[in-house]
């Protein structure tokens, strides 16, 4: 029964061979011996048909893969499941009759190598498929009595129809190992108990399922997580909106007709964008310190009697970071808005003026919608950027002042700076990973939804 169906399809394939390739699942039963051998010896068909270099590449990758798989791969895969079984420590050596120390397993490396092994297997399967496709091409071309492509032909194709391969191959490998692997790794750690009391190589950590998530959302960590999450959201909204509104106002101020030296003003504001953030924030932190110049000058003038705790009082510090953030962010909005303002059609505004609209109405109904329209995507990006705004908090307050109700967090800590403390100072990696995943899910969902909305508004096909 099955055989009959195949032959039917086979006939169809033969009639329009150019369009339809034989599916790889059926290729084996149909093709000639060379192709069949390619299923076991990758590149066999290529070598036999004088595509030596290509064939050797396939063959060598197969040999390399098999060697790796049996010497490392299986071990790595088992390691990924167990995350290590041998604890480091003393063990009794019966031959010597004494206790000797043994190194033990490193759960961290087991996890990393295990994940890399899964990726390498994926790459192996991909190469295997390419090998089969290549063998199929040879078989089909031969069946049609056509010439097989030489190395030179392949090279020319790479520079023409397959140019994308040349351009994309290295970046994609880079993304696999420097983006996908870290993401998968971070996500995996969230399901383990990798923290300061389970540090490899001295100790092992293991898979513990969802309990970290429970701990953060409803357990003891919630007391820190929820307030920090709340402040992160408040901060992101306020920082984005204030930069946007005040940036527009600044641009309009500079664009006022009759203002002298508008270019000078613009240059001054733009200058501040050029200064590396670690410099400008550290200088601000110095100036705003309890003993810093601003407090001292105000004291000397008799305006205040004691220092204002710009960075050391919870509530004040929150306002300070918002205000200092304006110093960095407003010029960027100003720069872009100026571009938009100068491209606004004068006709439309004149028409509105003739109809008796006042300045505020013109702004509300013509100027502002235009600005919003152009800047919507960058506003979304800014919002996401602010949720992850590490520099401003870390450099200005360091997350402080410390809040004794929180676990290793201060009043101005955002999720991302808290995460920094958790990983680099207290080594609570699993907690940090859970927070990371939560940030990622939130920002990804939010921006995908918003971009969809914006694209619809702007009439772009998503």
């Amino acid at each position: 029964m099955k055989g009959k169906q195949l032959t039917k399809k086979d006939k169809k394939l033969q009639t329009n061979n150019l369009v339809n390739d034989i599916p790889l699942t059926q290729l084996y039963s149909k093709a000639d011996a060379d192709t069949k051998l390619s299923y076991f010896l990758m590149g066999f068909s290529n070598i036999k048909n004088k595509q030596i270099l290509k064939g050797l590449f396939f063959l060598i990758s197969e040999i390399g893969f098999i060697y790796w798989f049996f010497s490392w791969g299986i071990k790595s895969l088992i390691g990924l499941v167990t995350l290590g079984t041998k604890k480091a420590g003393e063990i009794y050596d019966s031959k010597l009759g004494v206790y000797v120390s043994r190194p033990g397993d490193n759960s961290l490396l087991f996890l990393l190598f295990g994940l890399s092994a899964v990726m390498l297997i994926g790459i192996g399967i991909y190469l295997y498929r390419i090998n089969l496709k290549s063998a199929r091409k040879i078989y089909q071309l031969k069946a049609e009595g056509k010439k097989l492509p030489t190395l030179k032909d392949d090279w020319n194709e790479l520079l023409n129809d397959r140019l994308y391969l040349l351009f994309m191959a290295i970046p994609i490998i880079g993304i696999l190992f420097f983006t996908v692997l870290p993401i998968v790794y971070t996500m995996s750690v969230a399901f383990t108990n990798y923290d300061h009391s389970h540090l490899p190589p001295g100790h092992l950590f293991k898979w513990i399922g969802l309990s970290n998530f429970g701990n953060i959302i409803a357990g003891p960590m919630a007391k820190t997580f929820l307030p920090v999450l709340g402040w992160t959201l408040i901060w992101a909204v306020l920082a984005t909106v204030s930069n946007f509104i005040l940036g527009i106002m600044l641009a309009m101020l500079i664009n006022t007709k009759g203002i002298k030296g508008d270019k000078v003003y613009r240059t001054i504001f733009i200058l501040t964008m050029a200064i590396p953030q670690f410099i400008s924030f550290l200088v601000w932190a110095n100036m705003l310190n309890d003993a810093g110049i601003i407090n001292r000058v105000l004291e000397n003038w008799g305006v205040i009697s004691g220092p204002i705790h710009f960075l050391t009082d919870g509530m004040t510090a929150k306002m300070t970071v918002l205000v200092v953030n304006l110093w960095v962010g407003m010029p960027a909005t100003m720069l872009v808005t100026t571009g938009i303002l100068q491209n606004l059609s004068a006709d439309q505004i004149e028409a509105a003026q003739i109809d008796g609209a006042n300045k505020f109405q013109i702004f509300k109904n013509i100027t502002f919608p235009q600005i919003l329209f152009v800047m919507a995507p960058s506003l979304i990006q800014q919002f996401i950027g602010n949720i992850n705004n590490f520099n401003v908090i870390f450099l200005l307050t360091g997350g402080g002042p410390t809040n004794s109700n929180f676990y290793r967090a201060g009043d101005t800590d955002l999720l991302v700076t808290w995460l920094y403390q958790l990983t680099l100072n207290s080594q609570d990696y699993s907690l940090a990973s859970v927070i990371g995943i939560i940030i990622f899910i939130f920002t990804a969902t939010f921006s995908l939804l918003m971009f969809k909305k914006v694209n619809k508004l702007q009439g772009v096909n998503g």
Partner: protein
Amino acid sequence: MKKNKLHAIITSQVILTILAFIWVLPIIFVILQSFRAEGGQFVSYFFPKHWTLDNYKYLFTNKDGWNYGQWFLNTLFVSVISGIISTFLSIGVAYSLSRLQFKLKGFYLKFALIVGMFPGFLSMISIYYILKALNLTNSLWALVLMYSYGAALGFYVQKGFFDTIPQSLDERAQIDGASRWQIFTKITLPIAKPIIVYTALGAFTGPWMDFIFAKVVLGNNQSKWTVAVGLFTMVSSKENANSLFMSFAAGSVLIAIPITILFIWLQRFFVEGVTAGSVKG
């Protein structure tokens, strides 16, 4: 009516002047501090009582391990190499995504959009542990890798630029028998010069501005630090900050000058980047 208008202009002018003053204040402050002879992290006056160049000299001659010259060379090395690599990568990726047809293009665009939202900071921490597991931390090459890999995801501005080059140019060349590669090198690249300069300089300035990636990767090995890590460390501990703040200011001024010049040159691209390079999934 006219009087009102004049009033408005004067008010705007005054507000702008005050704002401009607030904006330049920290800049002038840090420049003045770099020339201050009397010690201490905090002062109660704006202008130094005694002026000196010692803070600058200290950066290059001190024996306390604050090896500014070495940091400068390190940063230059990292930024040149990662600048070259990222430019090649992102121009290639952007061109492919804008001009070439292939099966996984749509998938890649969506994938890059989502993966790009994974906080870079988080990836950094995991990359750090990957590098550490492979014994690659404390090396400038690790930093080069870290700065370059992101290029494959940062192609939006460049893609936006390629999108604006008319397709008819390509088609005409194709009729004349040019291959894709020839079209890319002979037609597209010469037009794309501005965006190449933009990409290269953007990638070049990154390592001068970033301190946190470098700090995490390079750890305590002072001879491998970049300028940013070094300067940050000079003032991050309380014991050092008191004596080193003026030298920190001097070091900041030294790197801020070239970056500012580059930036002012680049700012027109910045506007185009925000307005034209907006993410479209």
